[in-house]
């Protein structure tokens, strides 16, 4: 009887692998084709169909694609609008999240409900007035509208940090309070170092969000000087809609940093996302 049970788990295991591999093909294939297409000539793309392996490796597609728009400048803009929002979000949201998690004072519960309720608000409602606001502040056609708001904390990440900090043991900060340190110091010296997985997870999520942000730059940025890679890619699609190979090359270059980052940050990212709070520490 024992043997038959063992055999049935082996069968299940093989079945699971078959499903997983079939799914992987569906999830990975377009991705691989994108890379392959970026290395082909246009004639070959037209003939290749489902084939993946390029016959003639056209590495010059990449140099052609990158020289057809001011790649360097767009890249710098993309980096600025990614790095600064990461700093801004991590700093402000962990601070606010810490306050909501560890400092129960009069009115803190009510305020948190307000934070959560703003998560439901669609961006479209405030889109037009924000545009006007940034105009009044003289910040249109610059990178400021994409950076400044991130220094004032956003509800989704406040929520995430709050969930994370409330799981840490009660009394973690008691000794420090007796010593007379301020709450800012406690946050900086105790909670920030302890929350590396959460910081990493939020950092990676903000990276993906800002690096891939399309609507923001589309609305706020106009001149070439401040355009980001996503706008470059969209413009590219308009101008060279027939040059699929160059388009794919540009898309690969823009996607690459995300993949590299995800691979390096994977473990921390997955850990930081476990925020349901049912694990007792």
């Amino acid at each position, binding site marked *: 009887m024992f043997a038959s049970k063992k055999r049935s788990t082996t069968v299940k295991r093989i079945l699971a692998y078959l499903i*997983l591999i079939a799914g992987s093909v569906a999830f990975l294939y377009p991705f691989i084709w994108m890379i392959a297409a970026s290395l082909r000539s246009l004639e070959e793309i037209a003939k290749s169909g489902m084939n993946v392996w390029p016959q003639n490796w056209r590495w010059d597609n990449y140099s052609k694609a990158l020289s057809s728009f001011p790649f360097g400048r767009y890249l710098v803009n993309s980096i600025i609008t990614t790095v600064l929002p990461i700093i801004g979000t991590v700093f402000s949201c962990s601070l606010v999240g810490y306050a909501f998690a560890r400092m129960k004072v009069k009115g803190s519960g009510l305020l948190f409900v307000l934070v959560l309720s703003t998560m439901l608000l669609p961006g479209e409602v405030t889109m037009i007035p924000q545009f006007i606001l940034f105009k009044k502040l003289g910040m249109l056609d610059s990178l400021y509208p994409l950076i400044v708001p991130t220094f004032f904390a956003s509800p989704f990440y406040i929520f995430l940090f709050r969930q994370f900090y409330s799981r840490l043991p009660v009394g973690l900060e008691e000794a420090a309070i007796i010593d007379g340190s301020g709450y800012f110091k406690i946050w900086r010296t105790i909670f920030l170092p302890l929350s590396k997985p959460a910081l990493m997870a939020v950092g990676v999520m903000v990276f993906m969000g800002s690096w891939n942000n399309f609507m923001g730059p589309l609305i706020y940025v106009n001149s070439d000087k401040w355009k980001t890679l996503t706008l470059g890619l969209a413009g590219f699609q308009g101008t060279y809609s027939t040059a699929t190979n160059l388009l794919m090359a540009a898309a690969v270059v823009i996607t690459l940093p995300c993949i590299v980052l995800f691979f390096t940050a994977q473990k921390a990212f997955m850990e930081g996302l476990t925020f349901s709070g*049912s694990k007792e520490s």
Partner: protein
Amino acid sequence: MNGLIETLYRFYENMGMPAVLLPLLPFLTLIVILYAVLFAVTRFLVKKKVMRTKTASFYMFVSVWVVGFLLFTLGPMIFSLYISFTQWEVVNPPVWIGTDNYRMLFKDSIFYKSLGVTFYYTLVSVPLQVALSLLIALLMNLKLRTIYLFRTIYYMPTLVQGVAQVVLFIWIFNPNVGLINSVLRVFGIEGPGWLTSPSWAMPAIIIMSLWTVGGNMIIYLAGLTDIPQSLYEQADIDGATAWRKFWNVTLPQISPILFFNTVTSMIGAFQTFTQGFLTAGGPDNSLLFYAYYLYQNAFMWFKMGYGSALAWVLFVIILIFTALVFRSSALWVYYENEVGGRKRRVRKQKA
């Protein structure tokens, strides 16, 4: 693509309003100063014994969000409500026209079209996304040695940038050389023109949305790994089948996450923009998403008042749907601390 926005920028420049700005460094210094002032005020209040340290510190920390909320959310909300009652082409001052924008909206056939497109997309793609991502998460929770590899593979499409994604899928749905029709041809089926056909464009976009369920999948996975193993052991003792274990243990345990994913996917689906923008509304407006129609009105045709009215109607729609899901959640979302689940577990730990 935004020739009219260009005009707008030039208009502001002519008004003596420089479009290009303050250099970056001074501005960041300003933010640092703002933070410093907030801290200094708290210090002062505490020293003067106006507030207890904890309360003062709490409000100081939270003020970082409150300032942003007033400036970037509440202020714009109130203003947006006001301009939705005006006619405003940006270049002239707004003119109060009462509820005209809203009345016009109900006679606007394109408004109904975009509403229909958005509803179609939301009501079909969200259930599919929620179910598929849960199914994948269950597979990813299997105890297999290579599971990390599969987790990465299934998450990878999420990393492809939005514009790149749409561009890639424009190829995939290419009627002649695209992936989907090539696969169909293997089975002797001649596929439709997908993105060039009014009736197949939306199914194509929905298929595309399923490619990026990795984000939801990871959130489910976090929940699945949190389910206490003891519950499954108990079910095993009772001789439960795999299906019963899923139905009576797994599903109730992750229902709060199911709920979270449903709400966020739904809100996201109602706000879909890039797919509409890059396909310019699709053939015969079949991909004219609401958010894109709103964008057209406000930023291409400068009908800011009408655009704002559209935004508020969308807000009300999302609010109603979210409220419905929240209302129904009492029936199917199981919270541990409500039904005494936590107590049960605490007792078990003691034993």
